[in-house]
Protein backbone atom coordinates (compact mmCIF):
# COMPACT_ATOMS: atom_id res chain seq x y z
CA UNK A 1 0.00 0.00 0.00
CA UNK A 2 0.97 3.66 -0.14
CA UNK A 3 3.46 4.92 2.39
CA UNK A 4 3.74 8.29 4.08
CA UNK A 5 3.91 11.08 1.55
CA UNK A 6 5.19 14.62 2.01
CA UNK A 7 4.91 17.70 -0.15
CA UNK A 8 6.75 19.57 -1.40
CA UNK A 9 9.90 17.49 -1.65
CA UNK A 10 11.98 20.66 -1.72
CA UNK A 11 11.15 24.18 -0.60
CA UNK A 12 13.38 27.20 -1.02
CA UNK A 13 12.26 30.39 0.65
CA UNK A 14 13.63 33.71 1.77
CA UNK A 15 14.32 34.71 5.33
CA UNK A 16 11.20 36.10 6.97
CA UNK A 17 8.72 34.24 4.75
CA UNK A 18 5.98 31.83 5.85
CA UNK A 19 6.02 28.17 4.76
CA UNK A 20 3.70 25.20 5.05
CA UNK A 21 4.82 21.60 4.81
CA UNK A 22 2.29 18.83 4.25
CA UNK A 23 2.20 15.22 5.40
CA UNK A 24 -0.16 12.44 4.30
CA UNK A 25 0.16 9.51 6.70
CA UNK A 26 -0.44 5.86 5.92
CA UNK A 27 -4.17 5.25 5.70
CA UNK A 28 -5.59 4.11 9.02
CA UNK A 29 -2.64 5.27 11.09
CA UNK A 30 -3.83 7.14 14.15
CA UNK A 31 -0.53 8.59 15.30
CA UNK A 32 1.49 11.16 13.36
CA UNK A 33 4.90 12.60 14.19
CA UNK A 34 7.07 15.42 12.87
CA UNK A 35 10.86 15.32 13.16
CA UNK A 36 13.59 17.65 11.96
CA UNK A 37 16.92 16.43 10.68
CA UNK A 38 19.98 18.61 10.25
CA UNK A 39 22.76 17.54 7.94
CA UNK A 40 24.83 14.74 9.41
CA UNK A 41 22.54 14.29 12.40
CA UNK A 42 19.75 11.94 13.37
CA UNK A 43 16.14 13.12 13.29
CA UNK A 44 14.91 15.11 16.30
CA UNK A 45 11.36 14.99 17.58
CA UNK A 46 9.15 18.05 17.07
CA UNK A 47 5.51 17.14 17.71
CA UNK A 48 3.20 14.15 18.06
CA UNK A 49 -0.48 13.91 17.14
CA UNK A 50 -2.90 11.39 18.55
CA UNK A 51 -5.85 11.73 16.23
CA UNK A 52 -6.63 15.42 15.74
CA UNK A 53 -4.95 16.74 18.87
CA UNK A 54 -1.31 17.52 19.49
CA UNK A 55 -0.50 15.21 22.37
CA UNK A 56 3.01 16.56 22.75
CA UNK A 57 4.52 19.62 21.06
CA UNK A 58 7.49 19.90 23.40
CA UNK A 59 9.97 19.48 20.57
CA UNK A 60 8.88 22.58 18.66
CA UNK A 61 11.84 24.99 18.94
CA UNK A 62 9.81 28.20 19.40
CA UNK A 63 6.44 29.79 18.76
CA UNK A 64 7.23 30.35 15.08
CA UNK A 65 6.51 26.65 14.58
CA UNK A 66 2.99 25.29 14.61
CA UNK A 67 1.33 22.13 13.32
CA UNK A 68 -2.26 21.07 12.76
CA UNK A 69 -4.12 17.89 11.91
CA UNK A 70 -7.74 19.03 11.70
CA UNK A 71 -9.37 15.81 10.50
CA UNK A 72 -7.02 13.30 12.05
CA UNK A 73 -5.31 12.42 8.79
CA UNK A 74 -3.30 15.02 6.83
CA UNK A 75 -1.05 17.27 8.87
CA UNK A 76 0.53 20.62 8.06
CA UNK A 77 3.66 21.99 9.72
CA UNK A 78 3.69 25.78 9.58
CA UNK A 79 6.75 27.96 10.08
CA UNK A 80 6.40 31.72 10.39
CA UNK A 81 9.14 34.32 9.81
CA UNK A 82 11.58 31.69 8.65
CA UNK A 83 15.22 31.98 9.66
CA UNK A 84 18.32 30.52 8.02
CA UNK A 85 18.68 28.18 10.99
CA UNK A 86 15.36 26.57 10.07
CA UNK A 87 17.00 25.01 7.03
CA UNK A 88 16.80 21.25 7.46
CA UNK A 89 15.01 18.10 6.33
CA UNK A 90 11.54 17.92 7.86
CA UNK A 91 10.34 14.35 8.26
CA UNK A 92 6.88 13.06 8.97
CA UNK A 93 6.14 9.59 10.34
CA UNK A 94 2.98 7.71 11.19
CA UNK A 95 2.16 4.64 13.25
CA UNK A 96 -0.88 2.47 13.56
CA UNK A 97 -1.62 2.91 17.23
CA UNK A 98 -2.12 6.07 19.21
CA UNK A 99 0.25 6.39 22.11
CA UNK A 100 2.70 3.89 23.46
CA UNK A 101 6.28 3.51 22.36
CA UNK A 102 6.12 -0.07 21.12
CA UNK A 103 4.70 0.89 17.78
CA UNK A 104 6.72 1.12 14.58
CA UNK A 105 6.97 4.57 13.07
CA UNK A 106 7.14 4.70 9.29
CA UNK A 107 8.74 7.75 7.74
CA UNK A 108 7.97 9.74 4.64
CA UNK A 109 10.58 10.97 2.15
CA UNK A 110 10.86 14.34 3.87
CA UNK A 111 10.75 17.97 2.76
CA UNK A 112 14.11 19.67 2.31
CA UNK A 113 13.65 23.28 3.47
CA UNK A 114 16.25 25.86 2.51
CA UNK A 115 15.98 29.38 3.88
CA UNK A 116 18.11 31.87 1.99
Amino acid at each position, binding site marked *: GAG*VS*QTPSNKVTEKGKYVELRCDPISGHT*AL*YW*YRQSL*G*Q*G*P*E*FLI*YFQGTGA*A*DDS*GLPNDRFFAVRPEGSVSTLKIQRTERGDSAMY*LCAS*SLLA*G*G*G*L*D*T*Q*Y*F*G*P*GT*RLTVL
Partner: protein
Amino acid sequence: GESVGLHLPTLSVQEGDNSIINCAYSNSASDYFIWYKQESGKGPQFIIDIRSNMDKRQGQRVTVLLNKTVKHLSLQIAATQPGDSAVYFCAETNGSNYKLTFGKGTLLTVNP
Protein backbone atom coordinates in the same frame (compact mmCIF):
# COMPACT_ATOMS: atom_id res chain seq x y z
CA GLY B 1 20.75 12.47 30.12
CA GLU B 2 19.20 10.12 27.67
CA SER B 3 21.26 9.47 24.57
CA VAL B 4 21.87 6.99 21.85
CA GLY B 5 25.22 6.94 20.12
CA LEU B 6 27.21 4.99 17.60
CA HIS B 7 30.77 3.72 18.02
CA LEU B 8 31.77 4.07 14.35
CA PRO B 9 30.76 7.00 12.20
CA THR B 10 31.87 5.28 8.95
CA LEU B 11 32.22 1.70 7.83
CA SER B 12 33.61 0.51 4.53
CA VAL B 13 33.22 -3.14 3.46
CA GLN B 14 33.68 -5.26 0.37
CA GLU B 15 30.65 -6.59 -1.44
CA GLY B 16 29.75 -10.00 -0.09
CA ASP B 17 31.29 -9.42 3.33
CA ASN B 18 29.27 -9.24 6.50
CA SER B 19 28.80 -5.83 8.14
CA ILE B 20 28.38 -5.02 11.79
CA ILE B 21 27.11 -1.63 12.92
CA ASN B 22 27.18 -0.84 16.63
CA CYS B 23 25.15 1.42 18.86
CA ALA B 24 25.35 2.32 22.54
CA TYR B 25 22.46 3.66 24.55
CA SER B 26 22.43 5.17 28.02
CA ASN B 27 18.75 5.15 29.01
CA SER B 28 18.18 1.98 31.01
CA ALA B 29 14.43 2.57 30.74
CA SER B 30 14.52 2.04 26.97
CA ASP B 31 12.68 -1.11 26.00
CA TYR B 32 12.20 -0.81 22.26
CA PHE B 33 14.94 -0.36 19.70
CA ILE B 34 14.74 0.17 15.97
CA TRP B 35 17.26 0.24 13.16
CA TYR B 36 16.58 2.56 10.23
CA LYS B 37 18.38 2.84 6.89
CA GLN B 38 18.54 6.23 5.24
CA GLU B 39 19.71 6.73 1.69
CA SER B 40 20.82 10.12 0.50
CA GLY B 41 17.90 12.52 0.13
CA LYS B 42 15.34 10.04 1.42
CA GLY B 43 13.50 9.43 4.67
CA PRO B 44 14.54 6.73 7.16
CA GLN B 45 13.43 3.24 6.15
CA PHE B 46 12.51 0.73 8.85
CA ILE B 47 14.80 -2.30 8.85
CA ILE B 48 14.23 -4.27 12.02
CA ASP B 49 13.24 -3.77 15.62
CA ILE B 50 13.72 -5.55 18.90
CA ARG B 51 12.06 -5.38 22.29
CA SER B 52 13.98 -5.50 25.54
CA ASN B 53 12.67 -8.95 26.42
CA MET B 54 14.69 -10.37 23.53
CA ASP B 55 18.43 -10.48 22.89
CA LYS B 56 18.37 -11.43 19.22
CA ARG B 57 16.06 -11.05 16.28
CA GLN B 58 16.60 -12.04 12.68
CA GLY B 59 15.19 -10.70 9.47
CA GLN B 60 16.10 -11.15 5.85
CA ARG B 61 19.92 -10.82 5.77
CA VAL B 62 19.82 -8.73 8.94
CA THR B 63 20.18 -9.61 12.60
CA VAL B 64 19.84 -7.30 15.57
CA LEU B 65 21.53 -8.16 18.85
CA LEU B 66 20.70 -6.49 22.14
CA ASN B 67 22.92 -6.64 25.22
CA LYS B 68 21.08 -4.93 28.04
CA THR B 69 23.88 -5.52 30.51
CA VAL B 70 26.21 -3.16 28.68
CA LYS B 71 23.44 -1.19 26.91
CA HIS B 72 24.66 -2.15 23.46
CA LEU B 73 22.84 -2.78 20.22
CA SER B 74 24.24 -4.06 16.94
CA LEU B 75 23.00 -4.60 13.41
CA GLN B 76 24.53 -7.37 11.37
CA ILE B 77 24.06 -7.41 7.61
CA ALA B 78 24.96 -10.65 5.86
CA ALA B 79 26.47 -10.72 2.37
CA THR B 80 26.50 -6.93 2.10
CA GLN B 81 25.45 -5.57 -1.30
CA PRO B 82 26.06 -2.20 -2.97
CA GLY B 83 22.39 -1.38 -2.38
CA ASP B 84 23.06 -1.55 1.34
CA SER B 85 25.19 1.58 1.13
CA ALA B 86 23.44 4.20 3.29
CA VAL B 87 23.47 5.81 6.72
CA TYR B 88 22.19 3.52 9.45
CA PHE B 89 20.55 4.90 12.57
CA CYS B 90 19.60 3.17 15.76
CA ALA B 91 16.68 4.67 17.65
CA GLU B 92 15.25 3.96 21.04
CA THR B 93 12.11 4.59 23.00
CA ASN B 94 10.14 2.99 25.79
CA GLY B 95 6.64 1.76 26.37
CA SER B 96 5.45 5.02 27.87
CA ASN B 97 7.18 7.31 25.39
CA TYR B 98 6.36 7.79 21.72
CA LYS B 99 9.40 9.90 20.95
CA LEU B 100 12.16 8.18 19.09
CA THR B 101 15.66 9.21 20.13
CA PHE B 102 18.14 8.75 17.30
CA GLY B 103 21.89 8.48 17.29
CA LYS B 104 24.07 10.31 14.80
CA GLY B 105 24.25 7.43 12.35
CA THR B 106 26.90 5.28 10.69
CA LEU B 107 27.71 5.66 7.01
CA LEU B 108 28.08 2.23 5.42
CA THR B 109 29.92 2.11 2.10
CA VAL B 110 29.99 -1.13 0.13
CA ASN B 111 32.82 -1.45 -2.35
CA PRO B 112 32.24 -3.62 -5.44
